[in-house]
């Protein structure tokens, strides 16, 4: 399968189902790549796969695609250790890959079911930008006949918050859009903060749309619980110590990375929220404290 075909397949996945998580679309495309791959050895397969992942990261520079790709690579390594013979290995890989895909497509539903019990009747919720997982959680809570109001930040530069507000209005949830700068102002009114994540890092912190860190600091100052909802395939092997540590390839969109010379003049699209500001993480693996996240990653990668 040519790289251009792979990218086209990936884009088609996203076009076909705009609600799908980008990591799931990436893994689906990589599985297709695996099916059509013609390598004769496992090493060759791994090399082709690494190339393919790099190509996908160039198309969509989000952290989720990177973590999905690395997970898939890990999946190949683990399977190839059990079956050294290539053809047998490939069949097992394809079968397990399908199963894996089926499980992770259910992740978002699991997270939604887990989290909505934390939303009490009459709660005021603050969220940031547009997250499909948060939407699912709020959907579940509304279906449970809970009354609550949602405040969404506008989330510049792409005004994603307005899209989120529209989706919430369709669900008949009372919603108000606030300026990004109004987070401190609104924090005293809200009861809890729920945000999604593009990536969950080893320390238990999260990488999310720019403005999340600000919101976390504010909620800590006001003693409000700060919840993060994320599926487990977003766990990524990074350990940033501060904002500068987050690699440039995640901070800016793919086009900007390719065209602009001086990245310092550009606005980053994501920021890093340290684990000390996060109360709990809701994942399809259960409700985790930030310290439990590194445990999960160790279990996988060691």
């Amino acid at each position, binding site marked *: 399968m040519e790289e251009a075909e792979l990218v086209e397949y990936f884009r088609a996945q996203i076009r076909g189902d705009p609600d799908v998580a980008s990591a799931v679309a990436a893994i689906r495309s990589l599985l297709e790549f695996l099916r059509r791959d013609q390598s004769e050895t496992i090493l060759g397969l791994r090399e082709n796969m690494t190339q393919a992942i790099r190509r996908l990261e160039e198309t969509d520079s989000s952290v989720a695609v990177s973590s999905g790709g690395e997970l898939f690579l890990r999946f190949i390594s683990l399977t190839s250790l059990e079956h050294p013979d290539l053809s047998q290995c490939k069949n097992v890989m394809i079968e397990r890959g399908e199963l894996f895909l089926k499980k992770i497509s259910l992740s978002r539903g699991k997270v939604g079911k887990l989290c909505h019990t934390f939303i009490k009747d009459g709660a005021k919720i603050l969220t940031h930008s547009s997250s499909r997982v948060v939407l699912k959680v709020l959907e579940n809570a509304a279906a449970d006949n809970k009354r609550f109001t949602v405040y969404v930040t506008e989330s510049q530069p792409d005004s994603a918050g307005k899209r989120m507000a529209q989706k919430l209005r369709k669900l008949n949830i009372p919603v108000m859009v606030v300026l990004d700068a109004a987070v401190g102002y609104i924090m005293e009114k809200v009861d809890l903060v729920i945000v999604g994540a593009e990536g969950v890092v080893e320390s238990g912190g999260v990488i999310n749309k720019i403005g999340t860190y600000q919101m976390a600091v504010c909620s800590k100052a006001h003693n409000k619980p700060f919840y993060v909802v994320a599926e487990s395939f977003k766990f990524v092997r990074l350990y940033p110590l501060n904002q500068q540590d987050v690699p440039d390839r995640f901070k800016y969109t793919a086009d900007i990375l390719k065209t602009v010379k001086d990245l310092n003049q550009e606005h980053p699209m994501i920021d890093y929220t340290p684990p000390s500001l996060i109360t709990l993480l809701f994942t399809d693996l*259960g*409700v985790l404290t930030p310290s439990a996240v590194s445990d999960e990653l160790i*279990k996988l990668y060691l």
Partner: protein
Amino acid sequence: MPGADKETELSERIEAFLSELKRCGSGAGSLRGSAETARETTSLLRRITAQARWSNAGDLMEIIRKEGRRMTAGQPSETTVGNMVRRVLKIIREEYARSRGSTEEADQQESLHKLLTSGGSSEDNFRQHFTHLKANVIEAINELLTELEGTTDNISMQALEHIHSNEVIMTIGRSRTVEAFLKDAARKRKFHVIVAECAPFCQGHEMATSLSKEDIETTVIPDAAIFAVMSRVNKVIIGTQTVLANGGLRAVNGTHTLALAAKHHSTPLIVCAPMFKLSPQVSDTPFTRFSEILSKVNAHCPVFDYVPPELITLFISNIGGNAPSYIYRLMSELYHPEDHEL
């Protein structure tokens, strides 16, 4: 018929236990410590395993889950009942896995690793029949009972490491675990204890009397004086009713105040809690379980407080000392995730 007799006897015992639980809640029955509740629950579960009719592990788990739901509904604030039920369910799963001879299941939790490597038919119905399963499960429950009996002693044994001579220790209310802990340290060290009386039940008074009988210098203070006295205190040692999954506590009313005062003065807060108090619940909303103190007055009297994990320094349990951030790990070893909801 002997079979029917056994069954009626069994259901009678369960009913008796349930009514005991309900009575304790309203304060009318005998006030029992959570250790006794845990022991009685476990003996009852052992009796159910021995006498109820079941042919495979799945049936037994269903029966125990059903009884567990009834017991927890009878007295929701007594979480040790639910915890013991979950421990027994985990025991059954482990014994079943061992009988099947399966090598995995050391890692029963959902994890990314399992997601990636599972072959598909990992759904276990627990429907296979094993002849020795009953005996194995009963033996494992007996081990659990022995563990329960030794918990207070195990915790007290660690007292000398944490309490030094001429220290001032503060505690609140009455906790049998802390009492034993302090008495054990008093055999070799001399120290002072300040007990906050913990209105409205004022159990602190009984604690103080009991401690002073062992020649420990004790002072009782009203709850309002906690902050004022805190600057003179070296350590705060408390018990708790429940340890939550996020490392927080559900403890007697007034503990949160004590914890905040300790944090303000940077005084270490040590919680002595045996492992059977660990519960998979996570909640940060205030618990309101009201009790009647005066019939004609509308007095809201919450019985329990929530203490967030950031205020706690150390948990001392029968398996040693742990930080609050580690509680999730201990919990994953004690209970299976599918049993969190009975």
